Each structure stands twice: as C-alpha cells, then as structure tokens.
C-alpha cells in the first residue's frame, strides 16, 4: 500500500536482506564494499527525503542542504574539537535539525511549487555559503578531515579500512531506517499520510497541520544530517559539491525510481542510481546522467510505483500462483 505500510518486504525477505548485508564483506572486493557503503548512506538520506515526498506530500528540491549542514558540522567538529565518531554524529544531527527547523518554519507555510522553489532556494543559499565562506569551509578546495575515532584509546584505526567502516555504516543505516519506519507506522506517521491525501480535511479533523509538517521537516533534516555525518566520516573530506543541486536531484530521482512512501524503495532507488553512475561512467564518461535520465523517464511511464511497486506485484503474483498450486488436487 502506498500509504502507511513501510514496504512490501515480508519479515523473511527482510531477514535475508539483513543477512546478505552482514556477509557482504566476505563476498565483495574493496571497491564494491565502498560502493555498498555509499549506497547505504545515500539510501538513508533518500529515505529521509521519502518521509517528506512520499509520506507527507512535500516535494523538496533542496534536501541536500541538510545533508551538507550535517557533513560540514561533523567535519568542523572533527578538525577543531574532537574526532570522536559519536560527537561527529551528534553535531551533524543537531545542526541539521536546527537549520531544518529554521528553514522549515518558513517552507511549511507554503505548498506545491512555492514549497519546491523555497527549498531549492535555501539549498542554493547554503551551497553559495559553502563556496564563499572560505575561512570556515575552505571554499571549493574543501575540508580534509581526520579519521573518526571510537574513543580515547583509538587513534583512528578502529574504523579505518573498508570492512570496519562498512559495519559501522550498516549499524547506523539500520538504526536510521528503523527509526523512520517506526515514525511512519505511528499515529504521527498516519497523520502525515492524511496531510498528503487532503490537508484541509485534516485541519477540519483537528490537526494543526503546519506543526506536523514542520516536525516531519525537522525529522527528515535530522536524518539527512545523520547521513551527512556518515558521508564525511567515510570520505574524510567535505566540499560544496556535497550540498549541490545535483545531490538533491539524485535523491529525489532515487525516491521516485525506488517507489514513493515505502522507505525501502528509496534505498533500492539509491542503489540503482549509484550502480548506473559507477558502472556506466567508465563507458559513457559524463553521459551517465543521460542514461539515468532515460531510465527515470521509463520508470515514470512504466512503473508509477517504482521498483518496490514492481517487486510487490511480482511477490503477489508468486504468492497467488503458489496458493493456486497448493489448492489443486494431486
């Protein structure tokens, strides 16, 4: 259902996927493992956007702003204060939540194309700040950051190396996605779906919809900031390209290709986008975006519910066929 259910995956499938993610370092080489880590982090970022786009009906074109704020906060804390991994995460989440609260307060008072343009404008403002505030961000040159550490006894080695960081990112991903799933399954999540379906009706039912939308905006911003922290901890570098319009657009494309209002779809869509980028960029150079654009158009026309909608449909067909076969006399 494109409404309240967190996704089509059943518990057994979910367990199988988690098992595969746990054993992935045994099956993949360094490059693929790095790519999978990137997909998990970006997938979490896209899932946070899905909370806005899919569940609340708020189409944002500037979600990278909160990813970027989280990344810069984590980078700056690591450079100037402490390289502790949890301090970095806390700084990323808190700063992006505060910025989301400030910008969301204005944005949720608009709707439709105005909301879209306002979120885009905020993101472009932060992008410009990231480029021009040279003393803080080092402009386009970016900020190299120290490796994150786990505690006083660690000098940066515990999370160094692909496998250790992968497991750290996997735990963070599962935590973030679990949090989002709990939110959309709660009465608050049901209210967000009601707002998406008919906001004026929800107001007539007694919901102060602006507050709900602002809370969703802050939560989505905080999770995006969490993903931003992970991004900078993985790459040990932050530059304005992490706040660019392209990042916002790729996340939106991932949500739509994967299937809106499923959360898992956003992760599937991110995997799709990253695989296309990495597999095709060697053959097509910068033209991989063209291929992605064509795929995007195809999905919009052929799979209106995205990849997750297709997998749900195939799953339903298989279940019905199995049930029919079981019901037939021997």
């Amino acid at each position, binding site marked *: *259902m*494109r*409404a*309240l259910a967190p996704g089509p995956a059943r518990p057994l499938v979910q367990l199988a996927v988690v098992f595969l993610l746990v054993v992935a370092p045994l099956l993949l080489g360094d490059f693929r493992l790095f790519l999978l880590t990137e997909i998990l982090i970006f997938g979490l970022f896209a899932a946070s956007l899905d909370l806005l786009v899919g569940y609340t009906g708020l189409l944002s074109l500037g979600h990278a702003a909160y990813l970027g704020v989280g990344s810069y906060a984590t980078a700056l804390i690591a450079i100037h204060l402490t390289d502790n991994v949890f301090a970095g995460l806390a700084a990323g989440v808190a700063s992006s939540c505060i910025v989301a609260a400030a910008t969301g307060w204005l944005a949720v008072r608009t709707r439709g194309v105005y909301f879209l343009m306002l979120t885009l404008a905020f993101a472009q403002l932060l992008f410009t700040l990231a480029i021009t505030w040279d003393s803080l961000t080092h402009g386009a040159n970016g900020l190299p950051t120290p490796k994150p550490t786990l505690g006083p006894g660690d000098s940066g080695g515990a999370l160094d190396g692909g496998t250790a960081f992968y497991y750290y990112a996997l735990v963070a991903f599962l935590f973030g996605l679990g949090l989002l799933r709990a939110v959309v399954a709660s*009465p608050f999540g*049901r*209210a967000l*779906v*009601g707002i998406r*379906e*008919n906001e*004026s*009706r*929800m*107001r*007539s*039912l*007694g*919901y*102060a*919809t602006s507050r709900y939308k602002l809370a969703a905006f802050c939560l989505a911003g905080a999770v995006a900031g969490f993903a931003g922290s992970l991004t900078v901890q993985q790459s040990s570098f932050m530059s304005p390209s992490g706040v660019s319009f392209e990042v916002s657009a790729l996340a939106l494309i991932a949500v739509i290709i994967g299937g809106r209002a499923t959360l898992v779809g956003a992760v599937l869509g991110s995997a799709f986008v990253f695989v296309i980028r990495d597999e095709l960029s060697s053959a097509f150079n910068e033209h991989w975006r063209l291929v992605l654009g064509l795929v995007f158009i195809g999905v919009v026309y052929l799979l209106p519910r995205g990849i997750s909608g297709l997998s749900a449909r195939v799953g339903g067909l298989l279940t019905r066929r199995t049930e029919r076969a079981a019901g037939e006399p021997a």
Partner: protein
Amino acid sequence: MIEPLLDIHGLRAGYRRSVVLQRVDLAVQEGQVVALLGRNGVGKTTLVHAIMGLVQPSAGSIRFGGQELSGRTPDQISRGGIALVPQGRRIFSRLSVEENLRLAHRSRDGRHDLDSVYELLPRLYERRRHRGRQLSGGEQQMLAIGRALLANARLVLFDEPSEGLAPKAVDQIAGLIAGLREHGLSALLVEQNLHVALSLADAVTVMTKGEIVYRATADVFRADPETARAFLGVG
C-alpha cells in the same frame, strides 16, 4: 434564557470579492437538529465552511458554547467540539477504513471510540481493511459519519449527507442520523432531500441568496406546503 450551542449573528462571508453570505442569523440549541434548506448555490456550504473556519467572515459573529469562533483556525474549531461531515464525503480514499477512523479518533474523552463506532456501524467493521475508494457511496458516507462521531464533538455539521446516494443508502444514512438524534445529537443538517430533512429535523431554516428568509419548527413547516413551494420549488 439559555444561550444556544451555536449562535450566528449578522454573518457576512464569501470568497475574495464575491460576497456569498449577506447577513445570516442562525441558532442551534443543545440537543437540537436544525435543517438548513435552500436551492443550489444559495450559500449553504459556504455557511458550513464559515462555521468550520474554512472561510473567514468579513462581518458578524459565530459563537459556539459561548466562545467566539471568528478568527480561529479549522483545527482549533474542530478541537473545540465541532465535527464536519463534508459534502461529497471527502474520506481518505487511499487509506483503509480503520486508518480513516483512527485519524479521526483524537479525543479520548467522550462516548465514542473505535469499538462503539463499529458497534453502531457494523458494515464498517466488516470493511475495516478495505480502502476508502473500494467502498460504495453509502459506506463512504457511513465512514464520514463514523469519523465525525470519533471526534466526540458537541455539534455535527452534515453537508448534504444524502447527496448522490441510492435510495436504500439514503434510508440507511437517515436511519443512522435518526438513531444519533435519539441519543441527544446536536446538528446543523444541510440537505436538499426535503423528505430526509423533515424526518430528522426539529427546526427548519430556509436560505435564499445568502440570507435566512424563513425559520420555523419542523412541524409548522410540514403543515405549510406553500412555503416549501415558494422557497424551494417543491412540495
């Protein structure tokens, strides 16, 4: 004298420069069902929207339970004790029946909860896992009414509850509202179906061109077919 539950005085409201309600005076007493009759386009739904805060009045007052409603937002008015069963049902078509009801169940104080609504409307219990769009018109109207009951409101505004329904469904909905009336329902009933309106109302108010032009008890109105013919073109 006891102040009416809903007391509207000199209400003027509309959309942008178009004034729909000229000067409306209307009252609903506690435990009373008032039918608001009138032809299409005379401003009945605008009046309902003005009470709910969906249209802002430019003059006059709307008092509910002794409190002024003008300037309040729809969510404040709803939480204050007024529920709307809107024209065309307006249920959440992509959500299940149960999800629709749970969204409306905000106030835990009051006589209605999910179980009592299912008891009152067993058809909704049977269809609780179906999405709103899979329901018949009558079932959708039951759902809209169930949602209003779950708000545990002091006043329910029904906007054309029989509109677009098959005769059998109209009877079911009328029976349901009649049952609620027996339990002390206070309501403003906007209705085109004169037979339904008169079977449910204690008092009748007729509106033409944004003004209330007639008010009487339902019994007096029933005994005066000339009025119905003059104002409504029926009778």
